[in-house]
């Protein structure tokens, strides 16, 4: 089933879906598997698995540190893909890869897409790859029936949103504000009108990420967007409260 169809079906039962994020290999590959299991059991609808990179330019301090620790702990692209394969076979929700372009570039863009498809991954989010630089990537994703997730930001003009949308599949990732991941977001009328702009530029489901932390934030998205993305907050809770904390946190969100 196409990623978009899966999301549409889920949206018939829920007002807002939940996508969570984690950095593979942080604190270890084994822990990553357990975190994913806890989140799936808690009722997460889809998940982005970040392959760590030394220069995560779009991420804030929490995820930056997780990238660094994962690499120090010996995570490699190979071991992350291996874990991803295991996860996809074990759990019945869609998984996406999130990483920076150099990881794909060094692996070989077509080979990477093929590796994702072979492992049953559904798409990718590559925040430092605008479509102008991503011709080969977009072709490879199409060839392997994978969803390239395009990103909108509040600084994106209406025309450019339409341009970006023309390459998008699955859903659009709407960055809620300026800045990097993890900082606070102002859930305001301004955000509502930005999301309305996104909605009129794309017929794909809209995911909203950056600064989402709790149930109130998810409630805010009802009627304005389709998917809430929670990333840094998961890592914070894992660091402070461990696996049980994650399970409780996800349950409280649902």
């Amino acid at each position, binding site marked *: 089933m196409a990623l978009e169809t899966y999301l549409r079906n889920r949206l018939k039962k829920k007002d807002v879906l939940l996508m969570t994020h984690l950095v593979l290999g942080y604190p270890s590959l084994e822990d990553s598997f357990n975190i994913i299991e806890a989140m799936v059991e808690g009722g997460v609808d889809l998940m982005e698995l970040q392959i760590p990179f*030394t220069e995560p330019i779009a991420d804030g301090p929490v995820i930056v540190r997780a990238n660094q620790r994962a690499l120090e702990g010996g995570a490699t692209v190979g071991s992350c893909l291996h874990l991803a394969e295991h996860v996809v076979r074990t759990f019945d929700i869609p998984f996406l890869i999130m990483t920076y372009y150099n990881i794909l570039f060094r692996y070989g863009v077509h080979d990477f897409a093929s590796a994702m498809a072979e492992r049953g991954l559904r798409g990718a989010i590559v925040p430092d790859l605008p479509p102008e630089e991503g011709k080969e990537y977009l072709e490879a994703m199409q060839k392997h029936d994978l969803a390239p997730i395009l990103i909108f930001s509040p600084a994106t003009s209406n025309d450019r949103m339409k341009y970006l949308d023309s390459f998008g599949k699955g859903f659009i990732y709407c960055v809620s504000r300026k800045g990097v991941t993890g900082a606070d977001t102002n859930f305001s009328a301004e955000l509502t009108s930005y999301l309305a702009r996104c909605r009129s530029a794309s017929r794909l489901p809209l995911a909203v990420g950056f600064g989402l932390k709790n149930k109130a934030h998810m409630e805010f998205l009802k009627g304005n967007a389709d998917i809430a993305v929670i990333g840094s907050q998961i890592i914070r809770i894992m660091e402070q409260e461990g696996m049980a904390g994650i399970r409780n946190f996800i349950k409280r969100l649902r």
Partner: protein
Amino acid sequence: MNSRGYHGEFGGAFIPEILTATFDQLVDAFEKAKNDPCFWEEYVDVMSTYSCRPTPLTFAGNLTNHFKGARIYIKREDLNHTGAHKANNVMGQGLLVKRMGKHRVIAETGAGQHGVATATMAARFGFRCSIYMGEVDVDRQRPNVFWMERLGAEVIPVKEGTRILKDAINEAFRDWVTNMDDTHYVLGTACGPHPFPEIVSYFQSIIGKEARDQIMECEGKLPSRIYACVGGGSNALGIFSGFLDDGVELVGVEAGGEGVDTGRHASRLASNAGSVGVAQGYKSYFLQDRDGQMEETHSVAAGLDYVGVSPILASHRERGRIRFEAATDSEVLDALSLTIKKEGLIPALESAHAFAQAFKETPELSRDHIILINQSGRGDKDIFTIAEAFSDPGWQKFIRKKGNEYGT
């Protein structure tokens, strides 16, 4: 963005969506400035009244006699305000900031040179200023931190990653994606996403323009070879740009560190250790592992201790227009000592890489030949680093005494 700034297969603008509009504005402001004949005049005027342009070309008679080879000339970028070619780029970008109507500047710095230059420009033009500097560099470059703070800049130590220059660049980008409406990022070298490599080499081209006129005036002919050190590549592109269309051999000298076979170096183009990748917003050669993770670099000269290199230089290497070599830390210290003793000139450790390579090659050329070395910066401001590199006992005694005076 319409133009992506490719040089052969290198360059591009691998930027997060949130910055696209900011880069469009920068491309636009830069194009307009370049097409405005008054802009370059204004730039030259600022550089000749606030800095020391044109910088002289010095004939190094004693070094020439010492090596009994080509006649050696030295372009004196060390005589710029703040002591290095960094001032050229920074003052130029400052004029662009005024045109864009922004009021705050941020910059990364490694050794602190670019940070000090940016802080100077911000003080002069009345901009607020924040400088990102790796924690490791903050600890080893206190004099430059002192000056940046005196100049009114906020110095923010970067605690992420390897805590050096590349991490300071990442952190500056993170500030920029938050504050781009009123903030310009003054990138310090000819790297980063388009249009930074073009902007920085445009302002640095003033070095090559002057050097060409000066050598023609005093020798009536062009040099056979030109040597410049290569960190990010801005001083090299600056001087080389004046001679690209001539038959002059251009030599870029990278940091060989403890030797390119030891893994402790920053040689991306001269050694086989570099490979093509995409990081910090641009495609070029990087020192990275098989997965594409950036590796640690080493050089006695903090300004050359960087994992990537200008995409413009990468394309010149590919086309064979520029030859790249590496000089080791110890070769560099020898060249520095010799230059100090023979000419009374004190090159920065970075610049001394160009001297070291030139000294290896000059004996093979006859006296009919001219070689030109770009002294990109002066070394006396780096007294802490240079004294340490020479393990100077008198200096160590002095520091201990000073330490005791301040108490513990």
